[in-house]
């Protein structure tokens, strides 16, 4: 039997991107919070600038809990399984995946909240791809704006505003929705390469700008500014210039003395009482099981684990898994549209050896509905991003544009000349949810405890392939305007498997028949169970999701604090 612990107001499963944020408004409101985290604290000494260890051996993800739970994938019902990756994209640690994420911290475009109504109004309902389950969000950008603002200042985001209360600032993203005020820090500085790409963007009629990043461009709240050394893409920051939650909102919450973090706690089940309310969670730590009772349970896991924990938590009242009496848990899954690569070869060195993925230049002209789709055969679009980052093993492993083989003296001469002349576009594109794409429990593959892992059944559909081809043309034009002498496009038949940007599975919406959680992030079926993370998002946007899920988490936590008596029962 599990050891029963003392009752707490709120238990949060996962001290990462969302749980680490939600703990702050809750503890500030006077609530007692227990944060359960499967990983441990990592220290600045863990973040060595070591490409082999971090990027090729997958340290420390390789040795963590999540790595025993890598989902399986097949393209559709009955299709053969795809090869299973050896490293899970998420991270178990206090701070979670914000420890090693790239830090791009975007607000969604206003269109992302109303894909159905805006598309129907502008182009007609027939333009929503058949088979898509996409819905409007239950609210628009204006509802989330105050929470974006809150997170930008409490976590620490650098950037350049493009639209303050409707006033457009050409230095920022002119397509962004209105914001209340500037970012708390200016954008990361540019480089010779980003300046070259900015000029090329103007030459093709686009509007270039430096994107927002959860990385300090100067000292902020006692943390150092970025050193631009460029080793934070698979590791954390050794001087805490990256605004991971373990150095921002979590320490602030701990300072209230009302947050207790239990590390190495592997949550097994969400428990319910006889009335169907969540009563707490059972977790395993060092081989012993504990029951943590709580008035409110908040789940703040990566998409796959949010879904898996619900599906594993079966009970008499919820025989198909917790909060799944409408069969919606696992539905509407999607990842960012990652098909259709573009790479370029330049005639001169780019000096890309330093810098970081978040230090780049963006084009938003062809994202979302920022351009007229009337003559096109798809909806959505692409955010184009050219980053200043390169490391030696990856540089030596780059493609050769058909100019040589991959070894021997000819190859060596090629790589000696061109190691710093090759660039790969980073293109985040719209993905829509479809009824054929979903997550469930794998019938065969299990974790070391004998619990099934998630099975992904998903594939890109025709809209995604069309967006990808369109995006490739734009990226290629951008490179050519910048002077590239070779541009290569990859295929668009790649698989939609395990994404670092994985969405859906516990979608948020007013309709209880098609959504798991309500507009506040609380379960339609279990009133004291809140869910946070990208599993809530019903549209992907064409940009990194972290800031959005953090804004949603803050909003859920604030709603809980403001309505405590009603929700805690």
């Amino acid at each position, binding site marked *: 039997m599990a050891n029963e612990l003392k009752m707490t107001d709120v238990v949060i499963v996962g001290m990462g991107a969302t749980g680490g944020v939600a703990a702050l408004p809750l503890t500030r409101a006077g609530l007692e919070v227990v944060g359960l985290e499967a990983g441990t604290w*990592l220290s*600045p000494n863990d973040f060595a*600038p070591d490409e082999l260890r971090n990027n090729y051996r997958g340290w420390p993800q390789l040795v963590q809990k999540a790595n025993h739970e890598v989902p399986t994938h097949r393209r559709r019902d009955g299709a053969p399984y795809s090869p299973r990756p050896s490293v899970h994209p998420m991270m178990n640690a206090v701070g979670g995946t914000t420890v090693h994420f790239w830090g791009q911290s975007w607000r969604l475009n206003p269109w992302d909240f109303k894909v159905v109504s805006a598309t129907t109004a502008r182009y007609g309902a027939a333009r929503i791809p058949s088979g898509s389950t996409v819905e409007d969000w239950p609210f628009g950008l204006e509802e989330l704006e105050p929470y974006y603002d809150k997170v930008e200042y409490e976590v620490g985001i650098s950037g350049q505003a493009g639209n303050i209360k409707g006033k457009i600032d050409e230095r920022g993203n002119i397509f962004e929705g209105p914001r209340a005020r500037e970012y708390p820090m200016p954008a990361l500085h540019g480089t010779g390469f980003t300046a070259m790409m900015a000029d090329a963007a103007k030459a093709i009629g686009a509007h270039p700008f430096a994107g927002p990043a959860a990385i300090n461009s100067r000292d902020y*709240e006692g943390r150092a500014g970025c050193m631009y*050394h460029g080793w934070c893409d698979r590791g954390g920051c050794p001087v805490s210039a990256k605004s991971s939650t373990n150095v921002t909102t979590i320490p602030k919450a701990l300072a209230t*003395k009302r947050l207790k973090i239990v590390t190495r706690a592997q949550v097994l089940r969400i428990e319910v009482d006889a009335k169907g309310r969540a009563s707490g969670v059972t977790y395993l730590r060092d081989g012993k099981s504990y029951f943590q009772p709580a008035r409110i349970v908040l789940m703040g896991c990566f998409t796959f684990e949010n879904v898996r924990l619900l599906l594993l938590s079966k009970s008499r009242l919820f025989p198909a898994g917790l909060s799944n009496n409408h069969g919606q848990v696992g539905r509407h899954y999607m990842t960012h549209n990652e098909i259709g690569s573009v790479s370029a070869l330049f005639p001169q060195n780019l000096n890309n050896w330093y810098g970081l993925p978040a230090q780049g230049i963006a084009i938003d002209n062809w994202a979302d509905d920022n351009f007229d789709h009337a003559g096109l055969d798809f909806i959505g679009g692409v955010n184009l991003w050219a980053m200043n980052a390169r490391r030696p093993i990856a540089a*030596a492993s780059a493609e050769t544009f058909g100019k040589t083989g991959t070894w021997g*003296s000819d190859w060596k001469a090629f790589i000696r000349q061109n190691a710093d002349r090759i660039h790969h576009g980073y293109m985040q594109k719209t993905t829509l949810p479809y009824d054929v794409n979903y997550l469930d429990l794998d019938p065969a593959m299990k974790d070391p405890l004998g619990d099934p892992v998630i099975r992904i059944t998903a594939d890109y559909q025709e809209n995604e392939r069309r967006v990808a081809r369109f995006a490739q043309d734009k990226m290629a034009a951008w490179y050519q305007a910048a002077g590239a002498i070779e541009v290569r496009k990859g295929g668009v038949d790649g698989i939609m498997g395990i994404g670092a940007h994985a969405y859906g599975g516990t979608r948020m919406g007013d309709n209880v028949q098609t959504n798991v959680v309500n507009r506040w992030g609380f379960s339609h079926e279990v009133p004291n169970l809140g869910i946070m993370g990208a599993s809530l998002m019903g549209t992907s946007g064409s940009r990194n999701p972290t800031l959005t899920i953090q804004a949603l988490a803050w909003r859920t936590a604030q709603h809980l604090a403001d309505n405590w008596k009603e929700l805690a029962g």
Partner: protein
Amino acid sequence: MGKSPGDKAPKGHSRRDLFKWAGAASVLAGTGSVQAQAAPATLPYREALETLTAAEADTLEAFCARLIPSDANGPGAKEARAAHYIDRALGGALASARDAYRSGLLALDFKAREANGKPFSALDAKSQDAMLTELEKTESSFFNLVRQHTLQGTFCDPYYGGNAGFVGWTLLGYPGIRMFVSEQDEAKNAHPVPVRKSAYDFPMFDRHNAHIADGIAAPADLAHMPYGMGNSKNGE
């Protein structure tokens, strides 16, 4: 956060700390070669075989040397000690590839002896290239495995036993690991002076160096035990 919250989270580093350490590292770096890290400077550099047999190592050494040859463009995989890197890694991080090397290298050498009456390592470069060209077509997974590991062994941090003398980084024109990169270092046509240091020359990351303990609390997991549970009774 001006100071750490309580005694629980790991203590942060300031940039000033890092520069202080970087200064210490640059003094240490004067002691010279990569090999000095693996053995006390008073001993000559040695290489053991930790995983491969001598015959396997001979074949692999020749294989790597043709993938990234020593030629007019400078030293290659042999000088970088890529095969030494692979031998060490096969006993650790790459252990799952050990059997593939055993069977793959044996088959390559067997074919060389069968066709030419000589071990693969004793063939001339032209004959070795012909055999590897054939291997790339017929046994592409093994070929690509060795190629991938040879790239790692030639361009990795020298701590791992490859990229000896930084020959890989020099081949690419990589200016090396810096902890602080200035705006000027990233400007157009900038040519930062090459730094030839391992990540583990920075005392912050070097476990051998006593500096690592300076002011840094270990992650205080035990302080986060479930309340009501004794620290000593539960787990390791």
